[in-house]
């Protein structure tokens, strides 16, 4: 087990370096003048160019700047936006809302996805299974921002069941509608995965054994079949956190939630590249760490998995 964790941590290092390098490269290494357009329509004044070159070390090679970037990242400094605000401070203020939204969305996603998946698997090919498959296809076809806008229009503006936008700091209650919107599309794949995994384990030897022992059907499905079917589901939820965070950018923008996604949307509108890069870096790092935890959690779910 310790060996596995160590090996997994070692594998994590190149992926971490590679991913942060890509984000850094996309932001600073692309061809073209990184200061272009930063001073409106005019040419940037020499003093500004000198100051920016000094601050972002634009005269150094890319790889050296990447080193500085990593060192800054290590001590939690993500730079200062062109308007002079500390990006880390802004992110710290924004994170609680996003974490709440993401946790609530994952909770809804898992509840809906696993429930629908299990019930569809109990009678594959019957009405419930077919109906949820078709509805799922329709849900996937709706881009997230369309769902968010429609939900805001129908449930917020017309019916008045939910607040149209969210206050700062947010309460869980206000976040319910955005979280449902966010979870809706991701729930579909999860329920499909759970469905096929449960169907497979329902035909396995251990389920037959559980049945012959005379266990109730609820216990056979809920404990013996479901627990062994959760591995693909957990993998998907972990891998999907990245997609969920990308979705959060849109949903937070629509519902005016002052989270990391909302910060990204605002920064896009004000052309504040440094804040965007900082926010995306933090999301990507969080995503990599969550995936590492997901990999490590397999042992708890499936006792057959040994790590050595």
């Amino acid at each position, binding site marked *: 087990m310790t060996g596995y964790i160590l090996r997994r941590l070692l594998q994590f290092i190149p*992926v971490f370096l*590679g991913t942060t390098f890509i984000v850094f490269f*996309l932001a600073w290494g692309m061809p073209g003048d990184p200061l272009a357009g930063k001073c409106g329509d005019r040419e940037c004044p020499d003093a500004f160019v000198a100051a920016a070159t000094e601050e972002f070390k634009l005269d150094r090679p890319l790889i050296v700047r990447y080193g500085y970037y990593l060192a800054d990242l290590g001590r939690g400094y993500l730079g200062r936006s062109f308007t002079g605000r500390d990006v880390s401070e802004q992110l710290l203020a924004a994170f609680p809302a996003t974490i709440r939204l993401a946790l609530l969305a994952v909770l809804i996603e898992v509840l809906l996805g696993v429930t629908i998946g299990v019930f569809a698997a109990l009678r594959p090919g019957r009405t419930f299974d077919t109906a949820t498959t078709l509805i799922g296809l*329709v849900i996937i*076809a709706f881009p*997230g921002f*369309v769902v968010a806008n429609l939900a805001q*229009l129908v449930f917020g*503006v017309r019916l008045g069941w939910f607040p149209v936008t969210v206050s700062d700091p947010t309460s869980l209650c206000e976040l319910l509608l955005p979280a449902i919107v966010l979870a809706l599309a991701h729930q579909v794949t999860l329920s499909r995965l759970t469905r096929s995994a449960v169907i497979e384990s329902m035909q396995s030897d251990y389920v037959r054994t559980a049945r012959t022992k005379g266990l109730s059907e609820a216990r056979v499905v809920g404990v013996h079949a479901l627990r062994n079917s959760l591995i693909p589901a957990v993998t998907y939820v972990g891998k999907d956190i990245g997609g969920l965070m990308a979705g959060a*950018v849109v949903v937070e923008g629509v519902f005016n939630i002052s989270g990391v996604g909302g910060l990204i949307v605002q920064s896009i509108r004000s052309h504040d590249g440094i804040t965007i890069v900082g926010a995306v870096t933090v999301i990507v790092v969080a995503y990599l760490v969550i995936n590492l935890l997901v990999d490590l959690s397999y042992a708890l779910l499936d006792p057959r998995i040994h790590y050595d």
Partner: protein
Amino acid sequence: MTDLLQATPRAAKDGVEPRRRNRSLTGEALALLGRSPLVWVALVVLAILAAMAIAPGLFTNVDPQRCILLNSRKPPAYGSWFGFDIQGCDVFARTVYGARASLAVALLATLGSTLIGGALGLVAGFNGGIIDAVISRVTDVVLGLPTLLGAIVILATLGNTGGGVLRLALVLSLLGWATEARLMRASVLQIRNAEYVRAARVAGASSLWIALRHVLPNAVAPLLVLATLSLGSYVGTEATLSYLGLGLQPPTISWGTAISDAQPYLASAPHMLMFPSLVLTVTVLALVMLGEAVRRAFDPRSR
């Protein structure tokens, strides 16, 4: 393509039980597809959309760039089915003309990521060793970066420097090839040691010839399935990026920009939002249905 032309009518003639002999996996899958009514519905919808993209003038006489401010936010009425947007442009005309940019980005991005991913996957799977190790690690890294977030960083950095459809398609291809590469590699690995490949090797064929003539045609099916599925998701991604103000920019007409423009007037003029959203969703739905049907048809386990 010739398979498609041959397989479909033959399946129809033979009825329920098609002749199994002489039929490749691909041929059989296409015959299966031809029998599904959902596939035909999706194909008809996509044909209409393709016609819109190629010749929007067939669907509307109204010039989408001719906007009369007096008509601003007027709701749907006779003669203007979808109403007018904030600038007083006809929403129906703009939705029709928006098909071209939206579909072009999706098509080019799918083509780009399939070519990049397919080539890298083929090279990695066929050669193995150090080349495989390097390509696979790079693939892991690119997979670690969600496409939308990566695209936000690039497009925000590049700023509004023009390039439109091509630039967006290029960005999406550069970020989206990793899944394709992994799939292609896995499928090449399965075929690499097949007897016909070994036979070709013994017969003295060069590596390049074997890779292109023997491995590629037999390994490409899963990649094509994924390509069909990703078309739909790229239409959605383009719309999302344009919606965020990073994808296509006005004066390019696209569904994403239309929906983005409509958002502030959600309460007072919902028609501005509804119609482009509806067409966008129907497009993605048709592509997803087609992709899902193709996936099932090519998956021997679902037969």
